[in-house]
């Protein structure tokens, strides 16, 4: 069985470097430069899904890094990091968008840009091939919040605790939201394919491209 390797672009794959963070807390600007180099790209990747305005996004990320520096002594290294960055960025993007009147008139209030691809080398049969394509197409059309939780859960491999922090909901709500995502998926799927097929295709994990 092939075990997937998360790409280096996901926050999950970046190990929190205690030594680096300790230097940052102590006030070492050079270490902070390394810190920014490490997290800027994955942050941008996540943020871009919420807001495709490049300059605006870069401004938000800049503000975030300044803020982290200013509050570095109060941030506990370790698990807190992964979700802390995402959560802060997500909040500031959605808040700024609301302020500037850029918020989308959509049910969830925002877009979440993620498209799914199919890696054909995993397929063992024609049936699985068809399944997967249908899965992709169905997923591409899910609403923003559901797409986001699937992305965070499977592409960023974040725990429910982390997700609940990032999205600003309770742990139970994040479980529920994920269930809702599957439910939506199932509903859309049943409009297209045979019911029996639905069960197999519910095995959905999102794996970063190599």
């Amino acid at each position: 069985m092939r075990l997937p390797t998360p790409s280096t672009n996901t926050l999950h794959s970046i190990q929190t470097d205690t030594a680096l963070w300790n230097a940052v807390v102590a006030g070492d600007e050079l270490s902070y430069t390394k810190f920014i180099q490490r997290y800027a790209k994955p942050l941008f990747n996540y943020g871009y899904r919420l807001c495709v305005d490049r300059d605006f996004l870069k401004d938000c990320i800049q503000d975030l890094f300044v803020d982290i520096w200013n509050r570095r002594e109060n941030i506990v290294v370790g698990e807190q990091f992964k979700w802390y960055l995402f959560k802060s960025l997500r909040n500031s993007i959605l808040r700024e968008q609301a302020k500037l009147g850029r918020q989308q008139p959509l049910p969830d209030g925002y877009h979440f840009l993620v498209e799914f691809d199919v890696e054909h080398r995993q397929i063992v049969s024609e049936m699985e091939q068809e399944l997967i394509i249908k899965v992709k197409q169905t997923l591409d059309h899910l609403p923003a919040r559901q797409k986001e939780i699937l992305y965070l859960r499977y592409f960023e491999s974040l725990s429910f605790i982390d997700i609940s922090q990032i999205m600003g909901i309770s742990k139970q709500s994040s479980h529920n939201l994920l269930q809702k995502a599957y439910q939506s998926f199932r509903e859309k799927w049943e409009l297209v394919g045979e019911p029996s097929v639905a069960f197999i295709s519910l095995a959905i994990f999102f794996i970063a491209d190599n």
Partner: protein
Amino acid sequence: MKRYELFDVDDFITDEYFIDWVLNPQPAHHAFWEDWKQKHPDQLSKLNSAIRVINALAVRPLQAELTTEETDELISQVSARIAPDTVQKNSFLISKKLWMAAAIVLITMGGIWFYHKSNDVSNHQAFTANIFKEFNNTSTKSKIVRFADGSLAVLKPKSKIKYPRRFTGSTRTVHLEGEAFFEIQKNHNQPFLVISQDMVTQVVGTSFTVKAFGNETEFKVIVNTGKVKVYRKTEAQKQLEKSIMLIPHQQAVYSKAIKVIKRDTVQTKLLLATEIANQSFTLNKVKLNEVIAKLEEAYHVQINYDKAQLGELTLTAQLADLPLDQKVELVCKAINANCNFSNGEIYISSHHNQINK
């Protein structure tokens, strides 16, 4: 203990323990699942199907990732803001306010400059650190440089300007070598400073020209609209006594020999001075080619557009009191065209073929 043996494929998927094992295998997880597989071989096909379909799905990578240059730029910007000598201000996104007509002060400054002995060493260091952008106009035409706060400079040939990507701190400071015409957005909380070697031109919101070529013997600032203050950098602390305040149609000339800034009245016609500009740029059914000619003459820039296609279009607009780029944008809006400012030049193009008469 969960009843995994009763699980269907979709149940596996929502199970955190199962997910963790697939995506982030730990020895303890692995041991558990291997053992479980032994005990429940009937579930194996469901398990494997699920995993196969999982493995076949990927997230399409973004086309537009952050480049290395952008990351470096980000680092520079953050450094500038967290540096101890920088005062943090809240207003990066300065809302566009009305422009105030300002006087143009032209001060020509002479000769070879003594190196500035800045009282503020940390500012000097910040300047030499890699946090500024530079536009060097080596062409034969004037180029437009737009700043983050909406201010702009029309940079003459053989001139160079150094400016931060964002204006943080208590002032908005740019460094000029050569000649440029400035239109500065009003902001009382953040005065705009043009530093040319040893001279500082300080404004709040005005339009003016600074002329400071290294090999020339004079340094000049001409004020078009508003008010500017001119002083020598080394005297920044005593600037109040030794600075010169200039109002429209005045110019100040500094000559190295006598080390004195002299104030003068400008004799030549200043096309962007308030009264003249108000008249000239209040447009009532004027043809585009005429409007462009006025802009080119007033700003000494070249505006690229298809004269044959667009020249005869007429427009009615109030352009006075706006900086050059907003003037151009308004013109484009009026004739339903697109404008863009690439590489310091202005381009106007139509996006549909209809002619308004």
